[in-house]
Structure formats: C-alpha cells, structure tokens
C-alpha cells in the first residue's frame, strides 16, 4: 500500500517534536489525531503459515504425530550428516548426552542435559532445520524427529510416539535448571567513580 502525501504531513510534525531529545528513550507523545489507522487487519487465515511458534505449555503445536522409530530413519537422512549418526555432534551441535556434566569444569550442553522444554525442540526443528531446507518437514516428521532425539537422550522409550497432547508433558532433566538474571552480581564501587573532564559537545 503506497502512502499519500496527505498522510505524511502530520507524521512529520510529530517527528519534529520527538527530535527535541533525539537520544532519549522517552516514547513519542500522542499525535493528537487519533489512531494512525495504518496497515491491514490480520486474520488468523492470513497468518496461518507464519504463526508457527510453540510455547512450553504446548500452545501452537499442530495436529499430527510421529514415533521414535519413524524419527530414526528421518534422522539418518536429514540430520546425521551434521549432528552425527547418533546425535553425538559433528559439524553442528551435539544433541545427546552430557547429563550430570553441567556443574563440572567441562559442561556438555545438549537437548538431554541442558534444554528445559521439549516443546522448544519441536519449535526449533519446525522453523530452522534441516539447515539446508528449513520449513520443509511436515508436522508428523517434526514430531518423529523430536521423539527420536528425546529417545537418544534416554528420555523416551523406543516405542514412544508424540503428538500435541503428549509432547508438552515430556519433562526434561534440566527443567528447573534456570534462574533469573541477578546482575549486577559483583560489588559496585560508586565511591571510586573518577572525576572526569568532559569536552563540550560541538
């Protein structure tokens, strides 16, 4: 949608006011003209192919299902070249093992040892893998690969199958391993703040 010159003028006026403090984080004041009324309504039908994120509670998971055994064949064909035949890592990240290593001097961060949510595995494969052809896997294939990688980590048995109901219920070993940001985490020394000459802005 191309803009008209008529719509541009009020925008320029608002911009000019905001530039009084070009560096500040302060939000723009209301433009006094009401809603901008720019853009087109977005229906769920329009968004269907883009709305692919999956949350930890399973919201966003599609219909479909896939088993560990189906995932094994797929993994060999689509994943093993970069992640290793058993997910041990090669040119791309290691996916398997490392449980119990996080508190050691050589932590191994994998889906099994470090990732907190099984849903993230589905979301990431769905949007970004395989690296050479992202978004080429079906929902069934994505469930199957998720199941196989969890099986390789000893989290799912060989006969397991995943779908939108079961995947969010898979509890990963490091589910509770994450904490909030607590920085600053070293003592600040404000009293040491130096007296500093500042050259004048030009």
């Amino acid at each position, binding site marked *: 949608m191309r803009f008209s010159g008529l719509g541009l003028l009020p925008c320029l006026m608002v911009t000019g006011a905001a530039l009084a403090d070009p560096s500040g*984080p302060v939000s723009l004041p209301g433009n006094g003209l009401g809603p901008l009324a720019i853009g087109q309504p977005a229906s769920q039908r329009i968004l269907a192919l883009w*709305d692919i994120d999956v949350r930890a509670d399973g919201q966003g998971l599609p219909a479909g299902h896939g088993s560990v055994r189906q995932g094994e064949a797929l993994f060999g064909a689509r994943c093993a070249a970069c992640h290793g035949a058993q997910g041990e890592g090669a040119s791309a990240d290691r996916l398997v093992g490392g449980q119990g290593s996080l508190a050691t001097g050589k932590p191994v*961060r994998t889906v099994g040892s470090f990732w907190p949510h099984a849903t993230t595995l589905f979301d990431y494969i769905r949007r970004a893998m395989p690296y050479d052809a992202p978004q080429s896997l079906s929902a069934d294939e994505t469930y199957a690969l998720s199941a196989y990688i969890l099986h390789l980590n000893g989290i799912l048995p060989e006969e397991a199958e995943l779908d939108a109901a079961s995947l969010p219920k898979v509890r990963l070993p490091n589910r509770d391993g994450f904490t909030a940001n607590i920085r600053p985490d070293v003592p600040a020394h404000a009293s040491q703040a130096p007296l500093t000459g500042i050259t004048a802005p030009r």
Partner: protein
Amino acid sequence: MSFDIMREPRRSSSRRGFLRLAGGAAGGIGIASAAQALDAGDPLAVPEWSRTPGAPSASPPYGRPSPYEVLGRKSRTPPTFPGAASTGTPLQHLHGIITPNGLHFERHHAGVPAIDPERHRLAIHGLVERPLVLTMDDLVRMPSVSRIHFLECSGNTPWLGAKPTWTLQDSHGLLSCAEWTGVELATLLDEVGVKPGAAWILAEGADAAGMTRSIPLDLARDGAILAYAQNGERLRPEQGYPLRLFVPGVEGNLSIKWLRRLKVGDQPFQTREETSKYTDLMPDGSARQFTFAMEAKSVITSPSGGEQLRSPGFREIRGLAWTGRGRIAGVEVSTDGGAHWQAAVLEGPILPRCLTRFRLPWRWEGGPAHLLSRATDETGYVQPPREALLSVRGTQSFYHNNAIAGWRVAAGGNVSHAV
C-alpha cells in the same frame, strides 16, 4: 597481523603513510619496500595528483573509501557454516563513535536473506485488540525516531581461549554503534492496543533460521525501534534489510533482523535462542536466563594488539566505553597494569546506551607498559576485573564478559593482547 589487507599495496609511500596513521597495526605482511617513500629532510615534491585534474564527480555515484583504505570485517576463526557465523568490526582502525555501515559487525544464524521490500510484511498479533499486517511503506509513514545506540553481541570478548596475538577486532569486534531510524515499537503497540495480561513479545525474523526471541513488554516499551534505516540510509542486507528490531542497551541477539512478526503473549515463548543459547551457565550447574543488559564496559582502541610502536614519545591513548544502563559517567586508564589509574577525558555528547569516546595523553618512554581501562556508568556500577566476575560466574558462562581488559606494550614497542 594483516587480516584487513585485502589487496596488494599500490603506491608504497602513501601505503606507508596510511599504515602510520593506522598505528601500524596492519604492518608486516604485504607491504612493499619503501622505494618511493619520503625520507626526513627530502624536499617536498609536487605529486602527480597536484598536476592534473582528478576524477569527475559522482564516480562512483555511491561513494567508496579511498583505494588506500582496506578495512574489512572478519571472523576470529574460520566458521564451519559460513552463513551461521559472526564477523567483527575492526574497531582499532575506526575513529569517533559511529561505525560505518559496511563495517558493522555481523551475526547470522542461517545466512543473509535477499528480501524484496515490496513483498516484505510485518505482522503483529496475539494479545492485541487489532492485529495488523504492515508493508514497508506503512511503517515509513508512521511517526519515526532516530537515535544513536551501540549494539554488542553478548558473546563478544570470549571468556576463554584468548591469545596474545588477538587484535581488538578479535577480542571486542562484536560491537558497533550507529544511528537507527524507524518506528518506536511502543507506537505500534499503542496502535494495535495491547490486551490485559500481555507481558512478553515474540519477535521473529524472516531469515532461514526463523530467528526468535521473547522480549518483556516493559523492555519493548523502553525505546525499542522497528528500524528501517542505519546512519541515514536503508539497512544493509546483513543488518536486517528491510526491517529489524533494535532494542537498545541489551544483548544484540534480541534485535531480531529481517523482522517479519511480533506476537504478544502472557509468558516467554522459551525459544531455542533463550534456553539452549544466550543463557549463562554458573559453576553450580544452574543457568541464568533472560540476562539482557549489557553492563558497563570499555576498551582501549589505540594502542592495541598487533601494533608496533615505532619510537618513544607522545601518543594519545584512545578508547571506547559503553553501558546498557544509561550513560557513561567516567573512564579511568592505567598504564602500569592497574597499580595507578588516571581519569580519561570523555568526548561529548555522552548519549545513553551509546559508545562514548575517551582519550588520555601519554608519553611512551620506550619501556614495557600494561594498558587497561575501566568504565563507570551513571548508576555507579564500575567495570569489574576479570577475577571478580570469575569468582561469581566461573569460566563456563560464555556470555556477558564485560571485564577490564587491555594490552601489553613490550620494551621494543610490540603491542599484544594481555591474556
């Protein structure tokens, strides 16, 4: 160290002059003998460029650096997947606080997409009253802001693996600073109407990684920009053309490039990039999540690693300081490894969440020196020594290394990374 010498030198005399201006940091390989160089005491000649008119204007229409200027970005180590890699800014060769667009650092997870701006769309939906799809023209119509901010990758300055041969580009190159123009995210949020209970926003890229991060609503309203321009021109492809999110003061990964979708929700979306990556592993095996702020940090840009100081005498110690929490309040410099500190001069304007240039006159007497800088921000936070951070975080936290760092000057003038 000649990583940024990308072609053979042309005229040795000017070549040598350039290298002197650049502090000799690129010296060594590929420099022709100074057959035409001026020696001290020679009469000044009238060179050929003073005897004939030069090139016409607009040649080329989009201007380029002098052919004698050969700076470039580079990876610290050759990447396994060239599209999933980072390249650093050659900060040791730059001046002032603005990074030229062609030298802004890069971090991609699945290559640089070639996006047609006419076909690009931004969708915003989820917990909003009026979900929208916007074209680039729509976004450019909206009220705009232009602000100068730094961007730093939280993986900048690795905790481990430092080498004496590291240049500033190797140690701190995932840092750049530019003027970003676009629509405040807050403006768009007001336009679509955020529903009660909304607390987080998922931002998603249109690249082949479908890059996603969750951003708290209060951070999204704290000056975040839907940016379509950088330093006066439309974004470069590798910086997110035609649209990126820019969230000032926090780890660069949040500033999703090639932005195509914003989804408002009531909880974080727990994407791979905020669980498996960009979390900070502590010695007890727990990991800090959503460690957004880039804390106060500084580094000396000259002299710096790879330089050869050619003769004792006056030098200006120059550097950059920055903080994700407001403005830089001061920078101190030590030339003796931290035994004594002097206040450096800050150059204004000192902007929030922006690089600040500092300078200190210095006379190198020809002996060994150990150059360090330490920034303080307006919250009173002082850039800590590495040991202080390691005592809390151990060596495996990977991200957010803002420790004091510096350079060793050997008795003969060779400058190396102080590991």
